[in-house]
């Protein structure tokens, strides 16, 4: 559902760009990463994975609280919206990478695959929270999110091993 291909033009290279930060810091970070002699692709992916895990965890917690009757619908949907926004931000940082080597290209592809899956699960979860009948149920949403979280953590472990 969310698998639209954003950003057709050549993406800006933002090595080392991490969570939710204005572009001002990009310059500083570029310099820092150049000084440190690292490409930045690996760290961008691992930050994106970390942030996405946090977003998925938030969504899981919100759904869990909603299904146990502790959270109002407005609060749940806001939390899910915020999670989706954070996930999309992370996904964009990975999309904007321009990998230099074959290995990096593979890593980016793999990460994007997982992040897309996460976005899709999160969107389903949001629909589950919003719908009263017919659509996906809360347990469905929770299951999907759990699967997404597993894939993220697998990617994180692999990524951390590199």
């Amino acid at each position, binding site marked *: 559902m969310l698998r639209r291909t954003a950003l057709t033009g050549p993406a800006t290279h933002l090595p080392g760009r991490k969570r939710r930060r204005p572009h001002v810091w990009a310059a500083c970070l570029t310099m820092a990463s150049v000084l440190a002699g690292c490409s930045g692709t690996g760290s961008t992916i691992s930050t994106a994975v970390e942030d996405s895990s946090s977003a998925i*965890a*938030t969504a899981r917690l919100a759904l869990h*609280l909603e299904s146990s009757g502790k*959270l109002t619908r407005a*609060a749940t949907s*806001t939390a899910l919206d915020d999670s989706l926004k954070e996930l999309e931000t992370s996904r964009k940082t990975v999309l904007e990478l321009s990998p230099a080597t074959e290995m990096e290209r593979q890593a980016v592809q793999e990460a994007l695959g997982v992040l897309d899956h996460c976005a899709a699960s999160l969107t389903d979860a949001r629909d589950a929270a919003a719908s009263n009948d017919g659509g996906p149920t809360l347990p469905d949403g929770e299951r999907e999110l759990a699967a997404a979280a597993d894939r993220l953590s697998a990617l994180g472990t692999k990524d951390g091993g590199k």
Partner: protein
Amino acid sequence: MKRLLGVALGVLTAIGGFVDIGDLVTNAVVGSRFGLSLVWVVGVGVLGICLFANMSGRVAAASGRATFEVIRERLGPRAGLANLSASFLINLMTVTAEIGGVALALQLASSVHYLLWIPVAALAVWLVVWRVKFSIMENVTGLLGLTLIVFAVALFLLKPDWGNLAGQALAPAVPAEETAPTYWYYAIALFGAAMTPYEVFFFSSGAVEEGWSIKDLVQSRINVLVGFPLGGLLSVAIAGCAAVVLLPAGIAVTSLSQVILPVAEGAGKVGLAFVLVGLVAATFGAALETTLSSGYTLAQFFGWSWGKFRRPAQAARFHLAMIICLFIGLAVLVTGVDPVLVTEYSVVFSAIALPLTYLPILIVANDPQYMGQHVNGRPVNVLAMVYLVIILAASLAAIPLMIVTGAGS
């Protein structure tokens, strides 16, 4: 009896008024990433704000001069203007963050997108500043802000491992996933959130607004010395909730909707209702205070007529300045910039500007020309000098740490 009620009201207002969007966000972020290992900073910050708020209140009561008049007069026009520019910009950032916070809290309550709430929030702030009596404004937002105590209640209901929490708080250490620079960056952010300069501008100007005399000093001292530390405990409870629920789940706080999840977990929908009222009241109260503070600083620097105790027409430039500030905040917010991000930056920039505010207060509080017999005692001066050193160190370290850590990522 009436007097006792007055004292109680003052203390309760001080507690409820202590927490603003900066404290909420920073404490939740820190709790979700560092557990309680930074609680000591809240302690240091609260002691500092008690010290200097009390001092500025005493200056205002003894001389009738509010903080920025004192700053201009002691630092002269050049350093005074540099100070005004810095303080005013940070204050403007804080106004923006608070209005954004009101809107975010309203979204949590209504699921109507926060961008739609922003004009409503800004208009409401202006109406109160324009129309409502100072003491009513203070008491209502302060008392409603007290509902944030639900953070402490939720913390108890969550039945955390108290020994573990105490261990984190008493033997602070940098968690394995975080680096030392990040730890210190957030230490400065927490310090800035607790000691934000606008609180002193507002406190001293409020003393003039309410026409304090030396007789009222006892009351003000109780408000500060009891209310602020209890407000600080509230901040700690926010961090504690995040540390108990969000940290183990691997959630790093980046939005206001995450801040309230632990309360829902611990206290359910009732807790949620309380926390939403508290969020709106605390951010709305702080939006009022910061909007007024931006008017106060400008008016006091340039010598304009100011004060809510006057008719708006008798403080025309003061009111116009506040209207313009609200419009600027509104304009910044409608660009879609994340209010939580604005908040995170505003607390760090506050920490940078701290020495500019607190040094002149300390100097004037020692000047018998202003204070008569109510000059600072020696213990207060020693403590204040220690704080100036801390404040200076935090201020100097803030920018380098911000660059090294990429603003705390």
